[in-house]
């Protein structure tokens, strides 16, 4: 086999993918980091401004509160992971109709986020289904302004994130559960362990790698969340639902202030890398 010809062929096969990855995955990181230190509006050439963008960013109360909201968004992680694991355990069997349930939980995952926004705007209006059900159950007397009250709008948006992510993580956990050998459970049953003990002493330890992976994935997704905001609230009411990436989106795509937008997203990226590092540093199951 002539190895030079072989090498050339290998690179020809890889060519299209590598070109695309260069242009649309690596270039954004490099060029984006550079633009964070410039003033750039898509038309004129970028002008180097040093740390100005970052100074303006941290002087902007809106960005600070957006950053806080993104950090607050991490609250969805435990909720989504616990519920998804519970769901996976509940559907990890051959009970009649179980396939129907699995599909039902996955439905939001295959629905476009724009329609999810439309549907939840219906659910959340003053006389919408959510308030109606709560009134019917006598939990509340007055309708709650789920998306119009600036104290709770962010939490309403977070709930939608949980709702649409559950099925995705359920499937990942389901795959993990199915790789746990069944005879371990049978032995535990013979030893008299109840379902609760089997869950904590067998399922959770054996699923630790999956739990770690899913937690990191959902943490990064949570701090970078902005699609739901863009569709449901546009940052309002009173800018209470701005997240850091929504801020970047508004400044970049809407106002063409790319310097400021990319400075914001650079801050986010550093935050994300730190978060991922912390996770792998402290949550990694200890190897003996």
């Amino acid at each position: 086999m002539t190895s030079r010809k072989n090498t050339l062929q290998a690179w020809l096969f890889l060519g299209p993918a590598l070109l695309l990855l260069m242009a649309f995955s690596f270039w954004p990181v490099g060029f984006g980091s550079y633009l964070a230190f410039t003033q750039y509006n898509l038309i004129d050439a970028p002008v180097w401004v040093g740390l100005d963008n970052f100074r303006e960013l941290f002087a902007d109360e809106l960005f600070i509160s957006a950053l806080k909201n993104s950090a607050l968004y991490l609250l969805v992680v435990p909720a989504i992971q616990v519920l998804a694991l519970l769901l996976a355990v509940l559907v990890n069997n051959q009970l009649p109709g179980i396939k129907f349930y699995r599909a039902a939980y996955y439905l939001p995952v295959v629905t476009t986020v724009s329609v999810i926004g439309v549907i939840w705007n219906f659910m959340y209006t003053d006389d919408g289904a959510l308030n109606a059900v709560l009134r019917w159950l006598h939990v509340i007397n007055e309708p709650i302004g789920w998306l119009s009250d600036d104290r709770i709008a962010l939490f309403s948006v977070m709930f939608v994130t949980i709702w649409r992510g559950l099925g995705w993580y359920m499937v990942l956990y389901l795959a993990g559960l199915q790789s746990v050998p069944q005879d371990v459970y049978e032995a535990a049953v013979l030893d008299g362990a109840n379902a609760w003990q089997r869950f904590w002493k067998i399922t959770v330890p054996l699923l630790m790698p999956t739990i770690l992976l899913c937690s990191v994935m959902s943490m990064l997704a949570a701090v970078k969340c902005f699609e739901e905001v863009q569709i449901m609230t546009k940052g309002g009411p009173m800018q209470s639902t701005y997240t850091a990436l929504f801020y970047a989106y508004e400044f970049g795509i809407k106002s063409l202030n790319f310097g400021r937008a990319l400075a914001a997203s650079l801050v986010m990226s550093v935050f994300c890398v730190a978060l991922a590092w912390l996770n792998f540093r402290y949550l990694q199951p200890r190897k003996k």
Partner: protein
Amino acid sequence: MEKTLPMPRAATAKKINMNKLANRTLHYLVLTLLAVITVYPFWWTLVTALSTSGDVFTYPPRMWPENPGLDNFVEVFQTIDVIAFYKNSIIISVLTVAGTLVVCSMAAYPLARMQFPGRNIVFGAILATMILPSEVNFLVNFITVSKLGMGDTYTGVVLPGLAGAVGIFLMKQAFEAVPNDLVDAARVDGATEWQIFWHIMLPLARPALAALTILTLVAAWNQYIWPSIVMASPDKFPLSVGVLYLSGAFSFKIRVVAAGAVLTVLPILMVFLFTQRYFLRGFDGAVK
């Protein structure tokens, strides 16, 4: 396990059966409650889209359509150019699927079956794209696409997403599973690498190609933020973006908006219902 547990032997067979029945009932109760939470918002939207009279918001919330009919759907077609939106969604989805299959399987072949210098570096680089905070790429990619004159074009929407690490890994695994003997025999017979790729690898990797097709199709149909950024003229919007045009301009016509939402998700939910196993299997190797 250190605790001594009550032995099941002590219980009578009848009691065990009662316990089992109670457990099973509780199991289904929890499953159903969670399914109601995930499915009801969809159901409400469908019911509202099919109702032709009465109040939109009722107390308690509506369970069945009132005077069921298709008037609202007709009105959607009269209000916005749904046919054009469908056409755009189909064009974007078909181009994305075809491009992804070509680019990813071509890149996967040398990684799976060829030895050449730089192989590990390339593999590492592709892996690295999974760690990069790709959600912030849209800002620079918007600049790139505009500068390349691909703003407001299908190419601009489709191109950046074609080379995905997940797709490349999926195909790489499939190619690695092809028996060595087949490839060696072909090489002895003087087949070129391209012929091996085209006549041996691709036909044998059909299940992986099918999986990649379905997953890419659903993702392409559902993507919202990126096409909404690239496309400037409304007649080029895919459905996922167009449906928001409806909910923005005609938000007072709740039933019509609901019908638009149904029209948007219906095709992809059909695809999902017939191809569930590709999603609910947990992408076996792709994640691990």
